[in-house]
C-alpha cells in the first residue's frame, strides 16, 4: 500500500479555555488521488480537523503526517497544501489572475512566468476570459473557481476544502461539486472535503467520514455508509431513516414495536437489543406478495418533494416513513427482508 498523502495518528485538540476536546483520538489516512468527505452536525469538529491538517492549529495529542513526514508543529506556509475556504478568502485588491498567481509570487517566480501559469490555470477552470476582473466583480461560482485555481496552481501535496459550496445557491452547488470532482480527478490530488451537505459528500467522495462530538463515528464508501451504517447515530445523520428499537428474535427475525420483522440471517443471539434501519425508499407500496413484513395503515402526513413524495404511514405500533414517485392513496406497504438493516445495540 502506498504512503498516505495525509495521515492523522491519534490527533486530539481542545480550544483554549474549553473543557471538552474539539477533536480527540482521530485516526485517518487519505491515499493519493482519493477524495475523502467529512460530514457531521455543527460543532462536531470537522472544520477543526481541517485546520489541524492545514497547520492553522497545532494538535495537543497525536501527529499529522504529510507523505509520511511528521509535520506536527510545522507552519501552514511550509506544508504545501491548497486550502479553499468557505468565504473563498480571495484578495479583493488583486485581479483574478493575480490571486491565482499569488502562491507563485511568494515562491519567487518571475512575473511573466507566474502570469502565464495563472492564466493557464484559470483556463482549466473556465475563467480565462475573466482573468482581469476583480473578485467583487465575479459571481459566487466564479469566485469559487478562482479560489480553486489559486489552491491548485502551485501543485500542492493535497487539497483541503472547507465547506466550499455552502455560500452558493442550490443549482450552482450541484454544478460546482461536479466541477470540483472533475478537477480533483484530473489533478489526481488527495483531497479532504469538509461539508455539512450529506448529498454533496455522498455524491463526490470516495470515502465519507462521519464525525460526532469530536470523534470519528464511521469511515466508509458512500454506499456502504448509507446502506450499512455502523451506528444508530450514523444511520440517523446520513439520509432519511426509519429507526426502530428492537430485539433479535430468531436467526432471521427481529421484534419491533410495529411487530415481528423478517430479516436476512443476522447471527445474533435471541433477546439482544438492536436498532432496525429501514430506508424510506426501500418501503414498497401494497401488500407483500409473499406475506412477509406487510403493514396496513393510513397516511398521516404527505409531502410533495418534486421527484418523489415522502409520506408517514400510521401502522399498528408506530409510524413508517416511505417514499414513492406514485401519486394516490396508500393503504398498505411492505418491507422486503433484505431492506431491513440491523445495527447491534440501540444507542
Amino acid at each position, binding site marked *: 500500500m502506498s504512503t498516505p498523502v495525509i495521515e492523522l495518528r491519534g490527533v486530539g485538540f481542545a480550544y483554549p479555555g474549553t473543557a471538552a476536546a474539539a477533536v480527540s483520538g482521530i485516526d485517518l489516512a487519505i491515499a493519493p488521488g482519493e477524495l475523502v468527505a467529512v460530514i457531521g452536525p455543527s460543532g462536531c469538529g470537522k472544520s477543526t480537523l481541517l485546520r489541524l491538517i*492545514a*497547520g*492553522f492549529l497545532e494538535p495537543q495529542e497525536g501527529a499529522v503526517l504529510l507523505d509520511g513526514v511528521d509535520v506536527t508543529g510545522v*507552519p*501552514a*506556509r511550509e*506544508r*504545501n*497544501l*491548497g*486550502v479553499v*475556504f468557505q*468565504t473563498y*478568502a*480571495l*484578495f*479583493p*485588491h488583486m485581479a483574478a489572475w493575480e490571486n491565482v498567481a*499569488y*502562491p507563485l*509570487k*511568494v*515562491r519567487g517566480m518571475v512575473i511573466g512566468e507566474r502570469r502565464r501559469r495563472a492564466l493557464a490555470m484559470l483556463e482549466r477552470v473556465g475563467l480565462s476570459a475573466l482573468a482581469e476582473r*476583480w473578485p*467583487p466583480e465575479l459571481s459566487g461560482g466564479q469566485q469559487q473557481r478562482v479560489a480553486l485555481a*489559486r*489552491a491548485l496552481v*502551485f501543485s500542492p501535496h493535497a487539497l483541503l476544502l472547507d465547506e466550499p459550496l455552502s455560500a452558493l445557491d442550490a443549482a450552482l452547488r450541484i454544478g460546482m461539486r461536479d466541477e470540483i470532482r472533475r478537477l480533483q480527478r484530473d489533478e489526481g490530488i488527495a483531497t479532504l472535503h469538509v461539508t455539512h451537505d450529506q448529498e454533496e459528500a455522498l455524491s463526490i467522495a470516495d470515502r465519507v467520514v462521519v464525525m460526532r462530538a469530536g470523534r470519528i463515528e464511521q469511515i466508509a464508501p458512500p454506499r456502504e455508509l448509507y446502506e450499512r451504517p455502523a451506528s444508530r447515530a450514523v444511520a440517523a445523520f446520513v439520509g432519511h431513516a426509519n429507526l426502530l428499537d428492537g430485539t433479535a428474535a430468531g436467526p432471521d427475525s427481529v421484534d419491533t414495536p410495529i411487530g415481528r420483522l423478517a430479516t436476512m440471517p443476522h447471527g445474533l443471539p435471541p433477546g439482544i437489543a438492536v436498532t432496525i434501519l429501514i430506508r424510506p425508499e426501500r418501503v414498497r407500496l401494497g401488500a407483500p406478495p409473499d406475506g412477509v413484513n406487510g403493514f396496513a395503515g393510513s397516511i398521516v402526513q404527505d409531502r410533495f418533494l418534486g421527484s418523489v413524495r415522502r409520506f408517514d404511514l400510521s401502522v399498528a405500533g408506530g409510524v413508517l416513513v416511505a417514499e414513492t414517485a406514485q401519486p394516490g392513496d396508500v393503504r398498505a406497504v411492505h418491507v422486503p427482508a433484505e431492506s431491513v438493516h440491523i445495527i447491534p445495540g440501540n444507542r
Partner: protein
Amino acid sequence: MKRTQSLRPRRLLLTLASPGVAVLLLFFALPLATVAWDALSDPGSFRRVFANPMFLRSLGGSAVLTLVAATASLVVGFCVALHLSRIGPRWRALLSFLIALPLTFSGLIVAYGFILAYGRAGLVTQLLGLLGVDPAWFAGILYSPQGLAFATSYYLIPRVVMLMLPVLVNFDRTQLAAAESLGATPREALLHVLLPQVRTTALTAFCLVAAVVFGAYGTALALVGTRLTILPLQLYSMVSESGSDFPAAAALALVLTGICSTVMAVGEVAAAYGERNGPRT
C-alpha cells in the same frame, strides 16, 4: 396643499440647521474673514511673513514635528488597532475606552506631567542621571521638535486608533490564513494582503493627525514657551508678544490655515477615492 407639505420638511431642516450655521458663522467664518481682511488690507503682509528668517525655520520645525508625530502616531496607533481588532468585543470596548481617555485631558495638565517626569529636574531624568545620562541633554530632547512630537503623540494615537479600528475589525482575517496557506510568511501576508486594503484609511488618519499637530500649540507652549521654532508658536508670539504687525500675523494665520486645510483635503480626497474604488485602491 401639496406645496405646504413639501415646504414643511424643508422649514424643519432649516430650523434644525440654524443653530449650527449661526455658531459656524459667528465663531469661525466671521473671525476667519476678519483675519483675511486684516491680512489682505495690507499688501505687504505676506511679503513680510515670507521675508522673515524665522518663517522658514518655523516652517521647517513644524514640518519635522508633524512628520515625526504623525508617523509615530500612525505606526503605534495601527499596531494598537490591529491588536484591538484581534481580541474579543468586551475587552476591545474596555481598552478602546482607556485609549480614548487622553483625548479628554487638557494639554496643559499633560505638559505639566511631562515636565515633572522628563524635564530637567524630572523624575525619569534624575533617575537616568544616576546612570550617567546628562540631564540637560535628555531634557533637551523633550524640548526639541522631535521630542515634542512624541509628547504630542499621546492625543494623536487615539485618533488613529479610532479611525483604523473599524476597518481592521471588518477585515476578513481568513485572507491572512489563505495567504499563509499559499506560502506567505506573516510579514508577506501583512504587506501583500492587509496593508494594501487599509492604506487609504491609514493615509486619511495620517493626514488628520498631521493637520491637528501642525496647527496645535497648547502642549508646545506649556512645555517650552515660545522658544521652539514652529509656525503656531511664531504666530502666538507675533500676536501676544511683539503685537506690532497684526497684518503680518493675520497673513501667517492664513498660511497656517491653508497648510492645515490642504493636508486635511489630501486625506478627504484619499478617503473619497478609497470609498469609490473599494479595496482595489
